[in-house]
């Protein structure tokens, strides 16, 4: 079986999740990470509309219009879940009680800036809870494809799109590589075996150093 680009990214992203964590998964590709969490892990998924402990999608019989996730999809709640209002939900997020947020991105800069909510000239839809999540979660991991559909770099020296947060990304995962954002700048820590350092560099506008412990997969 060959994995699609998204599947590759999701497989790598799930390794960020440790047993016992409270995790917020963004809308879109990050939502797919939920299916890959090891079943013996005690992980609670937070939905910023007021649920800690998202369960699987409901069966046809279980569908409940009063129970949705932040993507407005019908879901279920696991044992041990709690419901709360939106102020409490963002108290959790803003107050640093969510261990990990995995979010999609449009662009990430070498300083760890993230842009993922607005394309100038296009209709503005809104940032939802993304700006709160990138500031509040203890750890922010962005997952996105390495290049845009047009083949342009999305890992930038500076974001060209309006920011969601400044210096907020802890780790970036693409189908080609994994980068950390540290006090000393952006560092390549993992890459695909099949891609040379040169090729990766040519596909990445951002400047980064290479970890002495670089891992290849």
């Amino acid at each position, binding site marked *: 079986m060959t994995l699609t680009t998204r599947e590759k990214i999701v497989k790598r992203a799930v390794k960020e999740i440790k047993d016992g964590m409270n995790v917020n998964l963004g809308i879109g590709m990050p939502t797919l990470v939920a*299916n890959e969490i090891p079943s013996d892990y005690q992980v609670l998924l937070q*939905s*910023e*509309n*007021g*649920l800690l402990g998202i*369960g*699987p*999608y*409901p*069966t*046809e019989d*279980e*569908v*409940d*219009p*009063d*129970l*949705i*996730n932040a*993507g*407005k*999809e*019908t*879901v279920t*709640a696991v044992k041990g879940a709690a*419901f*709360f*209002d*939106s*102020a409490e*939900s*963002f108290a959790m*997020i*803003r107050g640093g009680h969510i261990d990990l947020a995995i979010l999609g991105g449009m662009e990430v800069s070498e300083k760890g*800036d993230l842009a993922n909510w*607005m394309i100038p000239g296009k*209709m*503005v*839809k*809104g*940032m*939802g*809870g*993304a*700006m*709160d999540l990138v*500031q*509040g979660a203890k750890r922010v991991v962005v997952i996105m494809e390495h290049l845009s559909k047009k083949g342009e770099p999305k890992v930038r020296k500076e974001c060209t799109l*309006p*920011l*969601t*947060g*400044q*210096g907020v990304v802890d780790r970036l995962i693409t189908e080609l590589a994994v980068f950390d954002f540290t006090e000393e700048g952006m560092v390549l820590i993992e890459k695909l075996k099949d891609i040379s350092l040169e090729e990766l560099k040519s596909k990445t506008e951002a400047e980064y150093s290479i970890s002495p412990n670089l891992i290849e997969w």
Partner: protein
Amino acid sequence: MSKVFTSFDEAIQDLKDGDTIIVGGFGLCGIPEKAIEAILRKGTKNLTVVSNNCGVDDWGLGLLLANKQISKIIASYVGENKTFEQQFLNGEIEVELTPQGTLAERIRAGGAGIPAFYTATGVGTPIAEGKPTKVFDGKTYIEERAIVGDFAFVKAWKGDKLGNLVYRKTARNFNPLAAMAGKITIAEVEELVEVGELDPDQIHTPSVYVQRILVGDHYEKRIERKTTRKKEEVY
């Protein structure tokens, strides 16, 4: 002296053109369906609407948009709505996008008598433009202002005749906050019970926040994105 109304039209009688209304709900979940329908019938114009979302084209607050009753929206996400898109591009409607957590906290602050607070959310982004900032312990924060509504409209699961409210699952969302921040808060419920039937330890919105309460029938509770799994599927 009773807070119990039987007609939604009567309950919103004193809503005026130009009023600011705070509306509970997230997406189409936990929205005050019946009050929105009454506002549509009344045709009140130039409303400033504070709500996380603005409904879909043919349901929820989208109905008021389509009827051109809204002149300004304060929301975190307005993405599911073509009517909105058109009115925005025509300059018919003003939008104040606010991060969801900041929006929730601004409404709570309005209800709690806190005129402003600081948050790191939005620092270094377009949201920070024009807002005062302050540094605490070496980190920069934005000052955000409270929101108070002339009216707040909320939807609860059960309520008693004094106005105590209980919400169900994720239909709670912005409703308890909206209830706090309305000068006049109008609650609609699926079931209206006698005073004393709700457990005082389990009330989500104490009666002090609710000025008028009504029971609605035949809630449609429309689903925006029905997603299901097959029964045998293991998650």
